[in-house]
């Protein structure tokens, strides 16, 4: 036990990340259910305006900063050194430092519920002037927790980049790197480039909150500009979306070929489209600001570049479909989640086109249409891929399988529950329901869709419980060998779980699929 507290082993740190983020996932999930209970029917008073705003803010912040990003950090930590045939990350102690800073940020964040005046309640975007004027200390602690987190992520990003650039095993050129590693590479660069903008924006916010007479960045009474904050925030905020989705896409690019018994269709196209998406993601931020009243020339620019991102994204989807084509599909749980990802992420990508076309965005911006859109991308996208990835790599991490039966049940509940929860929210938005309202009085369709959405959310809640049951049962689950799925990448070359030093020897890498090469040459040798 104590050895986990002082560990600098990337695999253990990765598992610590996953476990901690898992706790935050449960917390944020409970908050989500509270939201759905409050909105199930008109004029409910389970939550007040203030407590609802706290719940919404903490749910969003937790899911983005304390669940999805750290889970990906955890998977990256566990997998990157294994997949590139390295012994550990480049800076193992910096790695431990990243995790503990993240944990500290998480503790500050969770305890901020007990701050004077309650937790932060200005949305995960914390727009000023509201976030400057908001009383109490919840907002200050929120800023502190994100400051800790950004430092943690920056250190982690540097570590990933140095590791990937310098520690790939013999023969692993860039074009032989696993697609998940490609995704983590771009993820890390994006973190490195945009997190400082968030830190700067939050620092200004904190200064203006604590020294209101001295600093005037965002409140216009003394010459500040509320719009400035939005630019700074979204310069970080849009790439953040890709920080959360690119590694998830990386997971999909690992699972689909293995369970189709084919190489990834268009490896180069997938890898390069990841890089392209990463680059473009940094010049589209103001598509979150179409209602601010920017010049329509600017709006037009941000519309066109946002649409350009759809091209490499579409390319990925078609390459994945082509990977399935004529394959030998083993429909195990990881594969089901990958298929679920494909079908749901497509919807999220397509609904994004409405948001990019700015006149249409004027109608749907800040409504439940947007809420539906980003949950299709982040839950149906990122989290489906992550859960699929956990089922896929669990045998490698712990030497035992998660139950297939419970896994498929988890998938069925989450897939159905997800669509029942979020699809009607598109309609709610078009009917005129803004996001972040704590109650409404409308009956009719508003009430019907909201009730359906709440029912779906509880279905997902049951799905998460089944998943937890599967995790609890895996202690006595079926034992896994080194390579239970017949994988393509180097992590399957070593034992499950891998020894502290990862590999005794690493085979010379001659393609992006060293293990399938190995299997083929073994087969050829035995045929001789």
């Amino acid at each position, binding site marked *: 036990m104590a050895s986990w507290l002082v560990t600098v082993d990337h695999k253990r740190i990765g598992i610590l990340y996953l476990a901690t983020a898992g706790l935050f996932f449960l917390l944020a999930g409970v908050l989500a259910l509270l939201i759905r209970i409050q909105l199930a029917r008109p004029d409910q008073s389970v939550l007040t305006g203030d407590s609802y705003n706290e719940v919404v803010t903490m749910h969003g912040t937790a899911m983005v900063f304390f669940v999805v990003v750290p889970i990906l950090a955890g998977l990256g930590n566990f997998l990157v050194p294994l997949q590139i045939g390295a012994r550990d990350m480049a800076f193992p102690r910096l790695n431990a430092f990243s995790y503990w800073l993240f944990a500290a940020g998480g503790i500050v964040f969770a305890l901020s519920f007990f701050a004077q005046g309650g937790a932060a309640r200005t949305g995960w975007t914390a727009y000023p002037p509201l976030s400057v004027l908001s009383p109490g200390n919840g907002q200050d602690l929120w800023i502190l927790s994100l400051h800790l987190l950004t430092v943690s992520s920056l250190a982690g990003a540097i570590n990933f980049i140095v590791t990937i650039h310098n520690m790939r095993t013999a023969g692993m050129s860039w074009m032989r790197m696993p697609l998940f590693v490609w995704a983590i590479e771009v993820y890390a660069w994006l973190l490195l480039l945009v997190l400082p903008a968030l830190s700067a924006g939050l620092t200004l916010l904190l200064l203006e909150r604590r020294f209101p007479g001295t600093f005037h960045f965002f409140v216009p009474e003394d010459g500040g500009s509320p719009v400035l904050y939005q630019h700074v925030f979204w310069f970080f905020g849009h790439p953040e979306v890709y920080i959360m989705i690119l590694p998830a896409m990386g997971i999909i690019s690992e699972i689909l070929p293995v369970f189709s018994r*084919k190489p990834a269709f268009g490896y180069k196209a997938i890898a390069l489209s990841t890089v392209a998406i990463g680059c473009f993601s940094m010049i589209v931020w103001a598509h979150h600001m179409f209602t601010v009243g920017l010049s329509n020339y600017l709006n037009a620019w941000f519309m066109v570049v946002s649409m350009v991102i759809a091209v490499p994204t579409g390319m990925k989807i078609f390459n994945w*479909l082509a990977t399935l*084509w004529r394959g030998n599909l083993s429909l195990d749980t990881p594969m089901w989640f990958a298929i679920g990802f494909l079908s749901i992420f497509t919807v999220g990508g397509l609904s994004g086109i409405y948001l990019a076309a700015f006149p*249409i965005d004027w109608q749907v911006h800040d409504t439940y249409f947007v809420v539906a859109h980003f949950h299709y991308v982040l839950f149906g996208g990122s989290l489906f891929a992550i859960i699929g990835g956990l089922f896929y790599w669990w045998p490698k991490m712990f030497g035992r399988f998660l139950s297939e039966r419970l896994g498929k049940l988890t998938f069925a509940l989450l897939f159905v529950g997800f669509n029942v929860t979020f699809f009607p929210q598109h309609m709610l938005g*078009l009917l005129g329901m803004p996001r972040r309202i704590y109650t409404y009085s409308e009956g009719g369709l508003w009430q019907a869709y909201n009730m359906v959405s709440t029912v779906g959310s509880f279905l997902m809640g049951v799905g998460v419980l089944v998943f937890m049951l599967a995790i609890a049962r895996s202690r006595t689950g079926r034992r896994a060998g080194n390579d239970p799925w017949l994988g393509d990448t180097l992590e399957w070359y070593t034992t499950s779980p891998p020894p502290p030093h990862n590999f005794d020897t690493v085979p010379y890498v001659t393609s992006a699929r060293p293990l399938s090469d190995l299997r083929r040459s073994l087969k050829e040798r035995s045929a001789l």
Partner: protein
Amino acid sequence: MTPPVRPRLLLIIGVLAALLALAGAAAAGNGGFGPTSPASPNAEGIATSFWFVTALVLGVFLLVESLLVVFVVRFRRRKRPRDADGPQIHGSNRLELAWTAGPVLILFAIAVFVFAKLPGIIDSPDATASGGPLRIEVVGHQFYWQFRYPNGVIAIDRMRAPAGRPVVLDVTAPDWDVNHSWWIPRLGGKIDAIPGRMNTTWFRANEPGFYEGRCAELCGAFHAKMLTGVEVLPQADFDEWLTTAFSAQHQADPALGRELWEGVCAKCHGLAAEGGYGPTLAAATLTNRDALETVIRNGRALPGRNVMPSVGRDWTAAQLQSLYAYLEAEFGSQG
């Protein structure tokens, strides 16, 4: 059953189900599958763009999802051994080119369509026979909307506007307030009300009627209660309302006072001042003009609780007088 039959069947069933659902939705007054019945040229332009995008998006959606279903059904393992490899195809430049060019064309079509519709959405039509556009100032406050007409008439939360005439809105929020967003779904898109910034938007309601709207940007505890609406009247009725309000609002006007009480004060303090989010207000407080003015102009920080915003820092003397007149009539007798 031969393998290729079932996927095709599934595909056909899927497409039919989707079409049926859409037709049903269209028949039922669209049920939220598109923007709610637009009633102004800009809202119509947006709705048309929406449906154009939907037509293309739906095609891509059906293509991807049906390919996915067909592939999963057709290429699932069945009796093959797990390690039986599929054909080792690494890619195809022709296909890559095709699914790069396809989306580019679709997105290009969308961009062209949207830009073609844009002038009709952003430019308010010129003056008509019924006179030039009417300009109304819209100011978002925590937690009410204040409208000011060219002749100085003030209204709270409920805007009156003439039918058939372009109405140009100058939308903002006071320097000491927070962001809000003005949105009447049937009369066009939303535009943010941002402190220190003046935005404009417009509408021209085709028919008299009441058009509901809401604040669309999180602005605090009562964001959900920042309801608003536009009551569109025939031109003659509107003119009459405006002149009547003009003469009434020159002195203390209990009608305006009532709007202020209900729209500004009662959301927190209750319609009968019984308290709620804000504290109960005694009749003595409500009729003490000096104390009232101080609190309305400056707001109040309650230690350990919430801050009352300075709701009326920018109110005119006539506005204050109107509120006093209403409060004295309503609560004075009890004191």
